[in-house]
């Protein structure tokens, strides 16, 4: 620590590598070099990065980082010291499914990059002008590195178990891409995916939004977000919260997010320094 230790004396090897604390400008140089190797233009400064508590207890991560850590562990094929006890049942199932089904794990291994996106909609306008219950979601896909193509994308939302009046009901949950918004008439939608679930079901629901994500990466101006709505089997439109769906104001480890898998179309050569 701070002293000049010639490693050859210490470990008998003659690499002549000197171990000492780096001076501040050397540390900055080293950081720049490693950021360049990681392909990053600068050191990211996330507003919602890792809090000191989360650095030591990954189980306290928000839903998206937690899911991504599952993928990381599945991809690097070994637990990074994360105690799976902290994981919800669905997360553990997700990792097992990623590892077990050959199609999924080949799919994950084939990706060069996986990215999760935070929902940018700050407030949930629960009712549309025509008094339809729905939820809005928006994700910023404009910062994707050049040459990365979306090979798959899914929207994930958590559903709690619902008892009471809906107990023996099923819900039809639909996810739409917003095509155009008008001041004087209804918003135009395109149905992307639907799922029928029991009111008592609990866990993460995944909706395939691959085509839409590719469109948004190629044409960011078309990115007007997603709408989600819930109907009973009688076609009655109901409040998404009443159906057990968790929004952005829900528990941090159950908030909705989107995840996309990318494959690089060209090799990124690092500029020599």
């Amino acid at each position: 620590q701070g002293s000049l230790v010639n490693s050859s004396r210490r470990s008998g090897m003659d690499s002549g590598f000197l171990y000492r604390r780096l001076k501040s400008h050397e540390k900055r140089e080293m950081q720049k070099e490693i950021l360049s190797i990681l392909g990053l233009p600068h050191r990211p400064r996330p507003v919602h990065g890792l809090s000191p508590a989360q650095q030591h207890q990954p189980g306290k991560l928000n839903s998206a980082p937690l899911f991504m850590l599952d993928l990381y562990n599945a991809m690097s094929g070994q637990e990074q010291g994360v105690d799976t006890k902290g994981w919800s049942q669905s997360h553990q199932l997700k990792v097992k499914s990623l590892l077990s089904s050959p199609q999924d794990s080949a799919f994950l291994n084939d990706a060069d990059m996986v990215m999760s996106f935070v929902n940018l909609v700050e407030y949930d306008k629960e009712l549309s002008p025509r008094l339809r219950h729905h939820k809005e979601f928006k994700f910023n896909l404009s910062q994707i590195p050049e040459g990365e193509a979306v090979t798959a994308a899914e929207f994930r939302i958590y559903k709690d178990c619902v008892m009471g009046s809906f107990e023996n009901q099923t819900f039809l949950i639909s996810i739409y891409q917003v095509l155009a918004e008008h001041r004087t008439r209804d918003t135009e939608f395109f149905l992307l995916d639907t799922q029928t679930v029991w009111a008592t079901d609990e866990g993460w629901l995944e909706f395939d939004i691959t085509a839409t994500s590719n469109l948004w990466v190629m044409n960011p101006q078309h990115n007007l977000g997603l709408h989600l709505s819930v109907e009973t089997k009688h076609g009655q439109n109901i409040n998404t919260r009443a159906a057990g769906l968790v929004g952005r104001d829900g528990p941090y480890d159950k908030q909705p997010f989107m995840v996309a898998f990318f494959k690089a179309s060209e090799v990124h050569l690092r500029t020599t320094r």
Partner: protein
Amino acid sequence: SATSKRKNQNRSRYTQSQDVSRVSSVTDYNSSDLKTACRKHELYVSFQDLGWQDWIIAPKGYAANYCGGECSFPLNAHMNATNHAIVQTLVHLMNPEYVPKPCCAPTKLNAISVLFFDDNSNVILKKYRNMVVRACGCH
């Protein structure tokens, strides 16, 4: 015998050229490599030491090993060298100024994945191929 004498002459030329190349090789290598055969040197980059634990979720760091040392001849048993490197060493010793020395470089590389936040608090899981040197040898 004549041949052995000639061989001696050759050898003296060899040793002479070898001495020359030895001298040149001494200048080529910094002192530490002179004694070390080509091998992998361990080096570890700790993201925590760099103060990056607020944006890098996993891993804690990675092995930035590097290859260093001399591709000399005769090769000792455990050093990994291709026949090409052996022949190139010999030819180099005869014509140091024309034939480059075999170089100590990676022979096996591994990928690593890094999980980190970007500026918008999105999370990126990126795979870096050929990132970690697993083995070195003479090329």
